[in-house]
């Protein structure tokens, strides 16, 4: 779905990316050997529980890891630029301009003491060299486009004067203002009502399609990725444990963790007696070097081999092209838990 925009056309290629956080308890490997390619106009979902490395991955892509974090290995290629090793000057021309981010909570991700309008025009002036006046006109258009009514008035308002939904729309306007090639949305709807969530997902999908913008949608909610993304990556303990086109992964999940995530979603056809299936236990913290599969302690299909050896992310046997999973068990024959 590349709209043929000027800067478009480059794949975002992540190769064997690992990030490390230094904490007072030792090092945490937040992202481990993650590889993913996002083609122009493609929408990719990254799914997993809290603490599985989704946000660390997003921040690493644009060189915004916190002070105690760093990229330990791998590369992030956008065209012929490696963002993983680029200096801050190069990164600054990429951030906002070619890769933009929408964060989870627009209450904290917008400057509380600056009017919404200026937060949109800032990027336009910085990256596109518009005059203040031009930028203001463009900002009003953008706000209208993302569904904020009375754009002229809203431009002068401050973040706390907008409802959560409008604020997140404004945050999306800030991010897409300069037509980036890639939009990273980190839990963009988590803080919002379900009805508003759906509207915002529609908005994200529409904007990406119209602008030929790639979307990396990060969420813990499989329901969110189902409707919007072309492909999904399921992450667990910093690793990709399953990846494939959204339809295939939903219909034919090959990793027990993906299966468990799917089972933990509420279903419309469930009766009152069916309970939601929770996944027992919590993900590993990432401090210790893992000997076997990180999901083994919580897995219903665990074998002796799983505890000794880390399964690699491999093509699913008999599956369609591009469907990968990192599991020794044969989930095609394994019984699904009752849904």
């Amino acid at each position, binding site marked *: 779905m590349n709209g043929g925009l000027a800067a478009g056309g480059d794949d975002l290629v992540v190769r064997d990316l690992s990030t490390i956080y230094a904490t007072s308890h030792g090092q945490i490997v937040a992202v481990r050997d993650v590889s993913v390619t996002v083609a122009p106009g493609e929408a990719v979902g990254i799914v997993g529980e809290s603490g599985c490395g989704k946000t660390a991955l997003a921040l690493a892509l644009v060189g915004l890891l916190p002070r105690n974090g760093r990229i330990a290995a791998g590369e992030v290629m956008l065209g012929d630029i490696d963002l993983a090793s680029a200096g801050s000057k190069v990164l*600054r021309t990429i951030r906002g301009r070619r890769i933009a981010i929408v*964060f989870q909570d627009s209450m904290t991700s917008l*400057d509380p003491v600056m009017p919404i309008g200026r937060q949109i025009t800032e990027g336009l002036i*910085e990256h596109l060299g518009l005059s203040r006046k031009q930028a203001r006109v463009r900002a009003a258009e953008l706000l209208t486009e993302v569904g904020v009514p009375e754009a002229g008035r809203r431009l002068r308002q401050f973040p706390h*004067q907008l409802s959560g939904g409008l604020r997140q729309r404004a945050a999306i306007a800030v991010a897409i203002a300069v037509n980036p090639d890639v939009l990273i949305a980190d839990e963009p709807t988590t803080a919002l009502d379900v009805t508003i969530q759906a509207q915002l997902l529609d908005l994200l999908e529409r904007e990406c399609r119209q602008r030929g913008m790639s979307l990396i949608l990060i969420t813990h909610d499989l329901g969110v990725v189902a409707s919007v993304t072309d492909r999904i990556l399921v992450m667990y303990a910093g690793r990709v444990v399953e990846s494939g086109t959204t339809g295939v992964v939903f219909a034919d999940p090959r990793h027990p963790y993906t299966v468990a995530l799917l089972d933990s979603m509420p279903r419309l056809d469930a009766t009152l007696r069916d309970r939601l299936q929770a996944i027992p236990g919590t993900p590993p913290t990432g401090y210790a070097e893992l000997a076997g599969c990180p999901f083994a302690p919580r897995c219903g299909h665990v074998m002796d081999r799983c505890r000794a050896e880390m399964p690699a992310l491999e093509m699913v046997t008999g599956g369609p092209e591009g469907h990968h999973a990192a599991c020794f068990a044969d989930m095609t024959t394994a019984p699904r838990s009752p849904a």
Partner: protein
Amino acid sequence: MIRYILGRLGWAVVVILAITIITFGVTYLSPVDPARLYAGLRATHQQYELARQTLGLNQPLPVQYIRYLGRLLHGNLGRSFSSGEPVLSMVLSRLPATLELAAAGLIVEVVIGLPLGFLAAVRWQRPADRVILGGSLFGVVVPQFVLGFLLLYFLAFKLPIFPLGVTTSLPGLVLPALALGLPGAAWYARMVRSSVLNVLGEDFVRNCRAKGLREWAILMRHVFRNAAGPAITMIGLDFGIFLGGVLVVEQVFGWPGIGQQAWNAISANDIPVVLGTVIVAATAVVIFNLVADIANAFLDPRIRYA
């Protein structure tokens, strides 16, 4: 916004009233009997009673207080016990000198303290930060009179750069202003450092970086405004406090401000002058605190619309 200002104004009035109750109480409880003073030591009992009546001291306490307030509102702060001059004109005659010193001291605080605090935060845990933090500790702990004498000794006596004697000329202002402002600058640096560090940890700063803004633009446009609140409150408070006279610095440098006058009045048991200075000082603190609150409301819309 108007409602916010009116609310603040109301509180300012309440605070000033509370201060007048205290100063009135001190007058009432002081060992000096105004009637005795008025009538003279050799007055007869009748003359003394007459004096009490003239001064209204035989009235009930609330009535006396209301009259006292009435006099204050007319700018009547009483007369000095020792010189008989009206206290108000005594205080006003000394105010320009104090104003000059207060403004200079504040400039030292702000011009030195704010940028250093900012720099320390931006260079967090790097050498510049450690030096500023260590230096500010010195500034915070050294007593003002020691600092004053050190400045005089090194910069006026050993190296005669600045005048040693009493002078209100511009060069003569430098050392008192430094003695007054440096400890404050140290406080400012520490405070600004921590509030800037707080703001730098906020999500929106990361978001600004994600927007590809220049680090400098982020600091000036976003971080500074968000971190300025505490500093503005403190500037308002400090200016008010300085206007009330700075006893120690004025004493060390022989600066002819209202602080020095109050000091002399304390030594001479001249209660009306002391209390008059207290009322002027307290009013100045309250007014500039109010100004700071309003400035903060302009800076932070969340206060304005709350």
